[in-house]
């Protein structure tokens, strides 16, 4: 048993083999990465017909593209002939993908367009049809977030996302002209299991001690961080949400001193625009509080001072590749765009003033749990807040309720 919970005794612990066992990792690849919806990327990364990106997801190299008719597509990035990587560029625009090995050429909607010396194949038309580029079996989009599944046997995307869909929609409504990702993707890798990155993002308890120096920096700019009256929500399906009112201002929505006086005035106008566009109630829900949303298994949406999309790609039990995009309002003034980017990367990413300490935390756990391997002490405790929840209270952001709901879901899909 990996997840050991006793609701009467108020104990909850996770066996640390879940972070380091190759056998567990392989089962995760099959039972999670091979069996459920995964976040692939955002539509705005490929705005024009012919735009393509290559990206590895769940260990599989993919082409993520917009075909010539404008439809978003995802293909296995492997020539159907002998398996060579079909597209060896990371991004670009192309009507066709030609394999360099034998010059088989596929259209950006997947048809095998040109087959050199095709007369050597008896029934060329049928052969070409059979050898079309392999589509990822399922692809659906919610608010521009493109998800794929490597098996056709999954429910509709909105059924999978469930209650998390609403919070993605809230974020998508921040700007009157919508939101877009920007070029300049943070590509980095951590020496820690992917689930440690999930726990860290859903963990308000670590914020003050781990980010002591960042909290100190905010204090010097005139902002006092608080964890009072803030909550964490189990959204079902392994998805989780923190709603934070006391961690930061929100560019365009909630002022704090480091944004400057110009932004203070702009926020008044922007809030009025939001109220007019969305109605007072929805505008308040979109704007008033920061949110960290986790969509099982590989998407984190940080809607904080500014916005970041983070994608987790497990590589080994002790290694996770991370990709992070800046997510911004379409059409905002250049000065606001620059403020947003400066502010966001001062916090998040491997060069920020805070994320390196998170990385230190999960890498430190990954190293530290070697100490208990094979002993009776090889368990991590996640019982914080269980007594409060049992009394029927909302789970605080500084408790561990959303980690527990994540792990319960994980145990379910893993057949634990």
């Amino acid at each position, binding site marked *: 048993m990996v997840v050991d919970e006793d609701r009467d005794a108020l104990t909850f612990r996770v066996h640390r083999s879940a972070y380091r066992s190759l056998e567990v990792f392989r089962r995760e690849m099959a039972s999670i990465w091979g069996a459920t919806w995964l976040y692939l990327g955002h539509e705005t990364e490929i705005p024009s017909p012919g735009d393509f990106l290559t990206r590895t997801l769940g260990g599989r190299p993919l082409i993520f593209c917009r075909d010539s008719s404008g439809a978003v597509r995802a293909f296995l990035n492997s020539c159907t002939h002998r398996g060579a990587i079909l597209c060896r560029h990371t991004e670009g625009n192309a009507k066709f993908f030609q394999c360099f090995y034998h010059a088989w050429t596929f259209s950006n909607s997947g048809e095998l367009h040109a087959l050199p010396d095709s007369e050597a194949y008896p029934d060329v038309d049928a052969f070409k049809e059979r050898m079309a580029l392999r589509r990822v079996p399922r692809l659906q989009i919610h608010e521009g977030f493109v998800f794929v599944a490597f098996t056709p046997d999954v429910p509709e995307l909105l059924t999978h996302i469930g209650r998390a869909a609403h919070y993605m929609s809230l974020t998508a409504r921040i700007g009157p002209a919508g939101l877009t990702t920007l070029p300049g993707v943070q590509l980095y890798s951590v020496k820690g299991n992917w689930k440690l990155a999930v726990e860290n993002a859903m963990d308000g308890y670590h914020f003050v001690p781990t980010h002591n120096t960042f909290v100190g*920096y905010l204090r010097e700019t005139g902002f006092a961080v608080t964890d009072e009256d803030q909550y964490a929500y189990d959204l079902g399906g392994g998805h989780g949400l923190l709603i934070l009112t006391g961690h930061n201002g929100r560019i365009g929505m909630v002022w704090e001193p480091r944004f400057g006086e110009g932004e203070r005035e702009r926020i008044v106008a922007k809030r009025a625009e939001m109220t007019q566009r969305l109605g007072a109630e929805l505008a308040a829900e979109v704007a008033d509080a920061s949110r960290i949303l986790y969509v099982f298994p590989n998407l984190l949406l940080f809607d904080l001072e500014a916005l970041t999309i983070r994608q987790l790609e497990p590589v080994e039990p002790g290694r996770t590749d991370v990709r992070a995009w800046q997510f911004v309002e379409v059409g905002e003034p250049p000065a606001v765009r620059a403020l947003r980017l400066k502010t966001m990367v001062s916090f998040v990413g491997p060069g920020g003033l805070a994320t390196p300490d998170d990385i230190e935390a999960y890498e430190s756990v990954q190293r530290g749990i070697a100490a208990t391997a094979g002993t009776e002490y090889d368990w991590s405790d996640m019982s914080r807040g269980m007594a409060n929840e049992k009394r029927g209270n909302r789970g605080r952001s500084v408790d561990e309720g959303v980690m527990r709901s994540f792990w319960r879901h994980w145990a379910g899909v893993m057949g634990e």
Partner: protein
Amino acid sequence: VNRADVEDFLYREAMLLDEWRLDEWFALFEEGGRMEVPTTDNQGWDSGTAGYFVADDYDLIRARVKRLKSRMAHAENPRSRTHRMVSNVVVLERGERTVRVTANFAIHRYRDGGAYTYVGRYEHLLLATPDGPRFRLRRAVPVMESMDPGARLSFIL
């Protein structure tokens, strides 16, 4: 400011960083100076229009130095051992009081049993002052395809 002056400046800067003499290092910036590290996919996009690893204004550089001097900067407590090689220094362009320079760097970093190599080039805009060159813009451009496992930018690149 000639190439030898720039070399002296960059070698001394590398020494200050390897020895974690961060207050002396911060004094190498003019007031209002900036520091940038673009992402590894950067195709010439500036820090006001694209995602970056580091896009510090002067206040943020100061905050970064203060943080790194604190024992609560957990990612750098204990501190990384770094060893910097700076070479291929070229003065690209001279303004009235400024010079645009480039140089190659290879930085070896060691921590917790891990060894990491950061390779790239500097693209600085330096201001000539009576006390020697000062950074107006300090830009470190990594040439790797991504940050290797464990290769964070918790130190000054």
